[in-house]
């Protein structure tokens, strides 16, 4: 299999790993892996590597990583998840991750987009070179 074919095949496997709500399902991923193990294609290692990369990319789209400094309640996390579900049109779950470097505020990453409202960023904008 050429690189392009491996990429396309991995994308199809990721499609098979999504449930009805277009969320990555652990059961379906297990199913895909078992099927691959039962009948391994050529260049299995390269395919699994690509599958992992694509799966991570897919997970990033449906998971809001909420970095915060200070305290963050479960209710706030839920409301953030609800807000992004509304914004993206897909079910988004929120995961909290403490990050004292923010000094105060939050930083939410969904997919490649980052929404930031923290003291550290505001201070950094004061010193950005004038390009």
């Amino acid at each position, binding site marked *: 299999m050429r690189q392009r074919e491996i990429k396309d095949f991995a994308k199809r496997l990721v499609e098979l790993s999504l449930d009805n709500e277009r969320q990555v399902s652990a059961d379906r991923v297990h199913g895909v892996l078992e099927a691959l193990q039962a009948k391994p294609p050529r260049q299995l290692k390269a395919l699994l590597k690509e599958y992992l990369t694509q799966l991570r990319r897919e997970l990033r789209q449906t998971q809001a990583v909420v970095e915060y400094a200070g305290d963050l309640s479960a209710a706030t996390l839920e409301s953030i998840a609800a807000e992004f579900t509304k914004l993206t049109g897909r079910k988004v779950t929120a995961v909290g991750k403490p990050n004292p470097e923010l000094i105060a505020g939050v930083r939410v990453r969904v997919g*490649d*987009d*980052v*929404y930031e*409202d923290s003291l550290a960023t*505001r201070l950094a904008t004061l010193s950005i*070179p004038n*390009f």
Partner: protein
Amino acid sequence: MSSVLEDIQKEIEKLETKTVKSNVGTIVQLADGVAKLDGLSGVMYSEMVEFPGGIFGVALNLEEDEVGVVIFGDVSQLKEGDEAKTTGRLLSVPVGKGLLGRVVSALGEPVDGKGPIDSEERYPVEKIAPGILPRKSVDQPLATGIMAIDSMIPIGRGQRELIIGDRATGKTTIALDTIINQANINNQHKNADGTFEEGFRPVYSIYVAIGQKQSNIARTVKALEKAGALEYCTIVIAPAAANPANQYIAPYSGCAMGEYYMQNGMDSLIVYDDLSKHAVAYRQISLILKRPSGREAYPGDVFYLHSRLLERSARLNEDNGNGSLTALPVIETQAGDVSAYIPTNVISITDGQIFLETDLFNQGIRPAISVGLSVSRVGSAAQVKATKQVAGKLKGQLAQYRELAAFAQFGSDLDAQTKAILDKGDRTVELFKQPPLSPKPMEVQVALIWAVENGFFADVEVKKVAAGIAALQEFFVTAKGNVLDKIREQKKLDDTLTAEIKEAIEEWKRSWKA
């Protein structure tokens, strides 16, 4: 103390409080100043990308899952896994008169230790060239101060004239002479209060050094400074030690600085020294980005790389400010091969070329301009009338001389007419020999060419012609300044002025001993 606190308070009030949205990606591969990033799904082509530590790059390859970014600055600070974010801005450089007399990097940052650049405006580095409507034909001369060029291959404001030749044939010297000559002319028309005479259009120069040795750049800066030309000049450097991204972007940065003058109704000159090394830097970037390679391993868009740069040089019409940007790109050939890929590309883009030959250089004919292979396609329309009057037939005469000189090498008997052509040709070649960094004003050129063309050196031994020319120039400058002034002001020769020139030369001839 309270005022300081108030200032801080004001700064805090100015700070935006809304959420900042950005698009991020992660470095998955980093090699030779080029990074491949996973993510950055929202990045635009040519958009600036910010890396940790205040390092910036430009997105050049937008692929399905990855983005290729060329990085400016110190790549060693970055590592795989680092996060980069989009900025929503295009790469830009400071422009304006605050850059005159300064040496800056490819990003417009000062590197001469003279403090920050005094500039309020910034221009994008990549810009679409002026279209057909705002342009005008080249009709104003840009004097290089080099007799062989101004008389036979004249350059006009807004023209693109290629300087091409092997290594060490005097390409940079021609470019520097031209810059120095612009400064000399500017100084000639400068009032005591620093302003220029009414109606005079100064030319501001930009010298872009790409892939050159630092020692050579230092020498160039010193030469311009010594000649008093640095005050009208900006030097943009991307030396051989700079990463290829900086070398790739340097000519575009310099061009943006020159465009400022053009767009604001002023005249400017830009030297790209040299575009061969620029193409090599771009080839390196392209190969790392895994773009398909073509002839000599250059990518398919290497023609567009130079055409979009050189098309930005133009002469604008009166409705658009009447400004101009003249370009002197430099190309280094290998063993005189002008049919290589990059030389043919740039020859076809430019409005003519000045071809320098190693053989001529080694024979002591300097500048080593090959008259037969050099051409200026649009410059003759801009040539000063006085120069045209005295030098109109020179190119043809020299071509004829070269042909006969090659034939005469066989030692056969020559008829009187052939001998006369050879004798005159020998003296014309001597006339065009000029030491480096000593451009001659137009009026001096006219007087000297007139003297040789009218046989005043016919009885002077060939090896003494150069000394005679120097003595005649000295005589005109010291004793016949009024004649030179008349040539400069009238810009054409009438019977009275011709008689005055003749009288002056005869006077000199009486006193000069070979």
